[in-house]
């Protein structure tokens, strides 16, 4: 149990997914997700913490120690590899027992721990098999087990749930969250799945191309994305992003998007203060767009139905406003057909405005 601190960590040379001047603090007992698309340096970051890669610049702290010169064994971390990295020549049981055996744990305790972990991960029946005979999901659970069996200072997990089928993934997600809370283990969890990150973490660090973009609680990441990258990446379906420009019309400030305009007179000053120009992006999540079959009283935006995707308990409707397509999440069955005329209105509290040049959030 320990906090982890990365200070200006840079690793660029000869590495596939470099990390640039990354500073990240993970508090003791905290569960932090590194959320990023593939190739953004998540794995590299974990490897640096584990001591498998040495950063060119910056320092790494675990607990109150600078661990830069320590070997992976001395750092006392456990890592789940994306490729599982199970020892192919020994049984599942020996794979699980391996980290305890090196540390000279008594046999009886090893047996007990193996049993415990196997039970949590539903792999009791596999204990005497060789890894090559297992399916991807089973191997992944063994890999998780090999990390969980130990009580290290930090858990490092590199996409541990990606190869599981949907049902098991949800089950293990909850199980791992519970375990982490119960054990109070500091955990860094790399994933490209925003649902996992939102569901499990205390805080989420969003990375893009080896740089930290936003580091905040899940709700804050969702409701206040710092820039267009985070806004697009977090949330399914992705946020609607409509390029527009700030204009004045009849004494009111509006966002002009060609086929429609959006009145922002009330907070125009704040927008103008932060924006680098008049070129902006209007962002609104599909869940925050309302769909009407008749024109609403406060004057909606006229649109036509483009695609209808029923998802069971909700429907995702793509509507076309001029050349722009809005995705709308409708919390019920949608009866319209493509081509039907509809009206949409945007929830003013949930509208995001970004600077088109810098991508930074303005309001």
């Amino acid at each position, binding site marked *: 149990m320990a906090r982890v601190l990365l200070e200006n960590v840079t690793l660029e040379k*000869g590495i596939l997914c470099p990390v640039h001047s990354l500073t990240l603090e993970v508090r003791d007992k905290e569960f932090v997700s590194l959320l990023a698309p593939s190739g953004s340096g998540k794995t590299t970051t974990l*490897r640096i913490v*584990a*001591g*498998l890669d040495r950063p060119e610049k910056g320092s790494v702290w675990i607990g109150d120690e600078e661990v830069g010169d320590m*070997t*992976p*064994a001395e750092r006392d*971390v*456990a*890592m789940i*590899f994306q*490729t599982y*990295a*199970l*020892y*192919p*020549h020994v049984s599942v049981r020996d794979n699980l027992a*391996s*980290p305890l055996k*090196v*540390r000279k744990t008594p046999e009886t305790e090893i047996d007990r721990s193996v049993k415990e972990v196997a039970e949590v991960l539903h792999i009791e029946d596999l204990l005497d098999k060789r890894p*090559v005979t297992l399916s991807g999901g089973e191997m992944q659970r063994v890999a998780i087990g*090999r990390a969980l069996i130990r009580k290290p200072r930090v858990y490092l997990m590199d996409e541990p749930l990606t190869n599981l089928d949907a049902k098991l993934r949800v089950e293990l997600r909850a199980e791992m969250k519970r375990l982490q809370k119960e054990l109070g283990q500091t955990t860094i969890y790399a994933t490209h799945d925003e649902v996992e990150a939102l569901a499990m973490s205390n805080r989420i660090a969003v990375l893009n191309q080896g740089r930290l973009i936003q580091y905040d609680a899940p709700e804050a990441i969702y409701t206040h994305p710092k820039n267009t990258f985070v806004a697009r990446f977090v949330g399914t379906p992705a946020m609607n992003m409509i390029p527009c420009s700030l204009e004045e019309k009849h004494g009111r400030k509006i966002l002009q998007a060609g086929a429609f305009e959006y009145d922002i007179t009330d907070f125009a000053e704040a927008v103008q203060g932060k924006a680098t120009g008049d070129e902006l992006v209007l962002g609104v999540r599909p869940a925050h767009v309302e769909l009407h079959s008749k024109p609403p009283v406060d004057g909606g935006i006229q649109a036509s139905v483009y695609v209808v995707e029923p998802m069971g308990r909700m429907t995702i409707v793509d509507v076309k406003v001029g050349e722009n397509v809005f995705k709308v999440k409708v919390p019920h069955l949608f009866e319209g057909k493509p081509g039907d005329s509809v009206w949409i209105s945007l929830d003013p509290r949930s509208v995001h405005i970004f600077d088109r040049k810098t991508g930074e959030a303005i309001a």
Partner: protein
Amino acid sequence: MQRRTKRQVKRIIRYALIIVVTAFFIFPLIWLGLTSIKPRAVLFDKPSWSSLFFEPTAKNYIDVFYREQYGLPPVRTYFEMLLVNSLLISLASVGLSTIIGTLAAWAFSRFEMRGKNTMMFFILSTRMLPPIATLVPLYLLYRALGFMYTHHGLILLYTMFTLAFSVWMMKGFIDEIPKELEEAAMVDGHSRLGAFFKATLPQALTAMAATAMFCLMTAWNEYAFALVVTGTDWTHARTAPVQLAKTFGESGYNWGLITASELIYLIPVIIITFIMQEYLLRGITFGTIKR
């Protein structure tokens, strides 16, 4: 019904092909065996297939170990000692070469180092010169070092011959073993070298067996250097190939004796090959199959 006959025809063709190819490769061995048990009188019968029917004799095999002398009791040839020499020298050099080669290959495969490719090329380049070109300098060197007529002299020599090959071959194999295995072992708590023994070595064993087999063939059959180092005089380190060649030259072409000696000379390699067969096959196909 028709499909079944078709399948059977296919199978017959397949086996026929296998038999033809096998026969092609095994024919020299069979002829060697036949010649070695033929009495001298029928050896040169023409055409040669007419001598397929003869009374087998074990005389040639006895001659390998005891040489007759006119009017005197037969003397021992100590051919078994030469076999022991060959075995000892080959196995020692193969062991050394495989172990050193594996460790070097691991280092080349896993560690960042400056001029890695240059070094690998340098190792390979030691085999580009025709070996015979180094014969004279080596002779002078060995004489100065006192390595002439010694076992360790030849062991060192053969280790050097085969090391380039084993480094390159093992590098290829070890590159195929995911390095995450070692990294997982390190995170588990092993040291750098401990991780190699725990995670990579068990995976490399089949490859090592295959490499060792190839090295063994080189060392076991080597003639030119063995002749220079151990052949000029009767010495206790002389290897079997040298003596085989002397058999050709000194007592006329006694083909029965030659073939019998060669068959005996083959036996240790055949035994070793059979023992290693399973490893060997796995080793040769290693990396060609996506696991």
